[in-house]
């Protein structure tokens, strides 16, 4: 199970008909059981990479080798739940084959038990995010795609949800691709960081994080942070 991404270029046409380059050389690979993190400034094209990798956008130059018939679980930036189905139905519709015991355990971890019969409009954003996570994990994905799953949540909630994601990712050997602009999230969850430049995005560097997720000390994280800061400074200087 392996993912090979080699996007040479991707451009969007804006409303005025002008072509704008979004991606210019995004190349990386990911193995099973590994959490890859796309880390870069806001608006650099991270979500566009995810869309291409998920097979939702075929209009680009280059190629993406995805394991054939891999089950993909995706958490979009917005929860994207079906507003006319309850929380439970939303999860079960995506994962019709999931058995009850496993689902129940999943709802426990994400603390959704009390909300199963609610409609998405009755949920706070934090809860809706957790439902989206439950949906993605319920299908027992081979390939998990997380697009800023913790954005715009308050710190305490984000920290808890991050722990929950770490538990779920650590549980099984799923290949995970996470997009974030939050360095803390990137370092706490990732095994390898792919540093992206500003638009048009290209991979500046790959930073491996060797310590296991649960044993990352503050010192380790600080070291990685300085390393990354150096990179981003360098690229800023190059641009200037």
């Amino acid at each position, binding site marked *: 199970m392996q993912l090979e991404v080699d996007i040479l270029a991707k451009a969007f046409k804006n409303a005025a008909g002008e072509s704008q380059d979004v991606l210019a050389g995004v190349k990386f690979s990911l193995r099973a059981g590994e959490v890859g993190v796309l880390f870069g400034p806001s608006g650099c094209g991270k979500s566009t990479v995810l*869309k291409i990798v*998920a*097979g939702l956008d075929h209009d680009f130059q280059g190629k993406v080798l995805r394991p054939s018939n891999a089950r*993909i679980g*995706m958490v*979009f930036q*917005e929860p*994207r739940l079906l507003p*006319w189905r309850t929380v439970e139905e939303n999860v079960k519709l995506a994962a019709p084959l999931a058995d009850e015991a496993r689902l129940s355990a999943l709802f426990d971890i994400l603390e959704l038990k009390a909300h199963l019969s609610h*409609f998405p409009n009755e949920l706070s954003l934090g809860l809706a995010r957790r439902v989206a996570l439950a949906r993605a994990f319920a299908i027992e994905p081979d390939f998990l795609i997380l697009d800023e799953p913790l954005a715009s949540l308050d710190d305490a909630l984000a920290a808890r949800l991050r722990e929950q994601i770490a538990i779920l990712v650590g549980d099984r050997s799923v290949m995970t691709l996470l997009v974030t602009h939050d360095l803390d999230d990137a370092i706490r969850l990732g095994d390898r960081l792919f540093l992206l430049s500003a638009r048009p995005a290209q991979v500046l560097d790959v930073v491996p994080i060797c310590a296991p997720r649960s044993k990352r000390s503050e010192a380790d994280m600080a070291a990685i942070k300085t390393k990354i800061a150096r990179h981003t400074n360098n690229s800023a200087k190059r641009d200037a």
Partner: protein
Amino acid sequence: MRLLSLAVFLATWWIAALLVDSGKLPAPPAVLAALTVEAKSGALFLNLGATLARVVLAFVLAMTLGVAIGYWMGRVRVVNRIGDPWLILLLNLPALVVIVLAYMWAGLTEAAAIAAIAINKLPTAVVTLREGTRALDPALDEMANVFAFPRAKAFQHVVLPQLAPYIAAAARSGLALIWKIVLVAELLGRPNGVGFEIGVAFQLFDIPLLLAYSLSFAAVVLIIETALVQPFEATISRWRPRAA
């Protein structure tokens, strides 16, 4: 509230009947008498039944075709390009023209009547559903795509609930249109039905009979609207926090 508003209507009618010539506007008891005669002979139910059957058939036909064509035109640009001039033509074709042409081409048959009624309703259903399809949320389509929803499942759980308000709107306005047209179609070329009876009453200048049929027809419409259409709308929009 509904009962009160009906009572006010009845009272207004009665007072008006007392004020004007009773030959032009009979009082409620006269109409009730005509109604009883028709009901006793069974003609009332036969005619109402015939009209209702035509309404149901034309409605189902027009809605099925309208939803299918509208969805198709909303999804596929080429189909929309080809279909649009037809749609504009049909939208602006007077109901009378369609009915008369249908009778002339297909004879004074049941099929011609139902087809003519359905054709009158079809274009509005298509237009409404096309708008609904254009308003579908691409984000949810992507979600269904990533999670590999089979086509039928995606249609049932992702597309259909989004179209439901549009289908309800098309059904609502379509039903109102059909109620109006079905009587004209019956008047012009059917040997039974409420429209035919109203034609008879017109020729005999029998105003109580005319009112008896009109009012029982209106009652049927009211019952169907409140007992079927409104609960249906309430069910499909129950997920909305505050349904308007």
